[in-house]
C-alpha cells in the first residue's frame, strides 16, 4: 500500500492529504488508501474527529451568529419574476403519481396487449377442411384450354398435357385453401399436373400419409388471375 507522503517519517499520510480525504477532495484511489489507514490508526482518526468538530462549529457560527441580509429591492424583484416563470411545483406527470403496484399493473397491461397483438398477427390461419367445389356451382363450365403455368403452388415437376376435350366436372374438385371461392370460375382453365404429394400438403390438401413421397396426378382449376382454385386427384 503506497502511503501518500508523511509528515513525521512514519507511515501516516500528510495532514493536508488527510484533510483532503476528509473533505472528499481526493481521487477515489488515494481516498481509499487514506481511508484504510485512518480505519486502522487511532491517532489519525482522532485528528479527523477534531477537525470535523471544529468545522461544524464554524458552520454553526455562520448559520446562527451572522445576521440575515436585509431585504433588497433587487432580490424581491428577482424572486417575483422567477416565481412567475417557474412551473407549478405540484404538477407531476401522471406516471410519476403512480404507486409501485399501479406502475406494475400498468406495465403488465401494456405488455399483455402487445403480446396479444403479436400473437394475432403472427398466427397461421387454420387450414380449412377440404370441401367440394360442388357446394357452389360455377356459372360457367371451365373450358379446356392449353395448359397455363401455375403460379401459387410450387411444383417440382409439371407435365403439361393437353387437357382432355371433355368438359370438367367441377363437382369432383376440392376448393383449395386460401382461394376465394366467391370469385366466378368463368375463364378458368383446367390444368393437369404431376406433383409430389408433399406439395398437396403444402397447398392444404390432406393426403393419406401412406402416399408420402409418391407422385400424384391432379387436375387444377386455374382462375383468370392465375391462381389455383380447386383441384382433384386423378391418380
Amino acid at each position, binding site marked *: 500500500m503506497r502511503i501518500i507522503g508523511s509528515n513525521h517519517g512514519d507511515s501516516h499520510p500528510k495532514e*493536508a492529504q488527510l484533510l483532503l480525504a476528509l473533505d472528499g*477532495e481526493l481521487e477515489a484511489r488515494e481516498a481509499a488508501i487514506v481511508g484504510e489507514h485512518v480505519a486502522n490508526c487511532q491517532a489519525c482518526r482522532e485528528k479527523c474527529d477534531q477537525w470535523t468538530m471544529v468545522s461544524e462549529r464554524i458552520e454553526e457560527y455562520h448559520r446562527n451568529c451572522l445576521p440575515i441580509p436585509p431585504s433588497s429591492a433587487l432580490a424581491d424583484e*428577482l424572486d417575483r419574476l422567477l416565481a412567475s416563470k417557474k412551473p407549478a411545483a405540484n404538477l407531476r406527470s401522471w406516471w410519476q403519481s403512480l404507486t409501485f403496484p399501479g406502475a406494475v399493473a400498468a406495465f403488465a397491461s401494456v405488455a399483455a396487449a402487445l403480446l396479444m397483438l403479436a400473437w394475432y398477427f403472427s398466427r397461421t390461419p387454420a387450414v380449412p377442411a377440404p370441401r367440394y367445389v360442388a357446394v357452389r356451382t360455377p356459372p360457367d363450365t371451365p373450358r379446356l384450354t392449353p395448359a397455363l403455368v401455375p403460379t401459387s403452388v410450387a411444383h417440382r415437376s409439371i407435365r403439361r398435357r393437353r387437357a382432355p376435350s371433355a368438359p370438367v366436372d367441377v363437382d369432383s374438385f376440392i376448393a383449395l385453401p386460401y382461394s376465394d371461392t366467391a370469385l366466378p370460375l368463368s375463364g378458368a382453365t383446367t390444368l393437369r399436373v404431376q406433383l409430389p404429394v408433399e406439395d398437396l400438403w403444402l397447398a392444404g390438401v390432406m393426403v393419406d400419409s401412406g402416399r408420402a413421397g409418391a407422385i400424384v396426378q391432379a387436375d387444377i382449376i386455374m382462375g383468370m388471375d392465375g391462381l389455383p382454385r380447386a383441384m382433384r386427384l386423378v391418380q
Partner: protein
Amino acid sequence: MPRLIMAGDGDSALAPWSEAEVTPIPTLQSLGEIFIELREPVWRYLLALGLAASEAEEVVQETFLRLCQHLASNGKQANLRGWVFRVAHNLARDEHRRRQRRPSEPLAGVEANGRAYTDSLATPEQQVIDQERALRLKSALERLPTRQRECLHLRAEGLRYREIAEVLGAGVSTVADWVQQGLKTLGKECDENHRK
C-alpha cells in the same frame, strides 16, 4: 452604448443598430438563480471578514452588478461561484483599505448586528453556554492569520478547494495547508477551553 438615430438628424433613415452597439442581456433566469443561490453565502462571508452590514450590502450589490456585466460580455462561465466570491473578496479588501484611510468609525460589527444564538430546543443555560462558545470561536478566528481565516470562512460556505484557490489566488495544496493549520489551531483552543 447604442446610438439612436433620429430622422432629421442628418441621417435620412433610421439605421439598425450594429452588433457592436447592442449589448446582449444575460438571461434573467441564469442571473436570478445565481443571485438567489449566492447572495446569502457571500453576505455571510463578508461579515465574517469583518465588514459592517451596510458595507457588506454595497459589496454584494456591486458584485452582482459585475456578474451581470461579466455574463453580458460572454465572460467565462465555468466556476461562477468561485468567480463571484473572488470579486466579493477583492471588493471587501478594497473596502478595508478605504476604511483604514478614513477616520475610525464605530463599526456595526458582528457582535452588534449578530443574531443572538438561539436554539428553541435548548434550555436558557445551554443557550448562554452556546453563545459564549460562539464568541470564543469568533475571537479565535480573528486571531488566526488572514489567509487561514479566509480559507475557513470560504470552506464553511461550501466552497470546494479549487474554488477557494481561485478566490485567494493560490494553489489547491496551499489552500489545504492553510485550512489544516487553521483547524489545528482552533482545535487546540477548543481543547483548552474545554479543560478550563
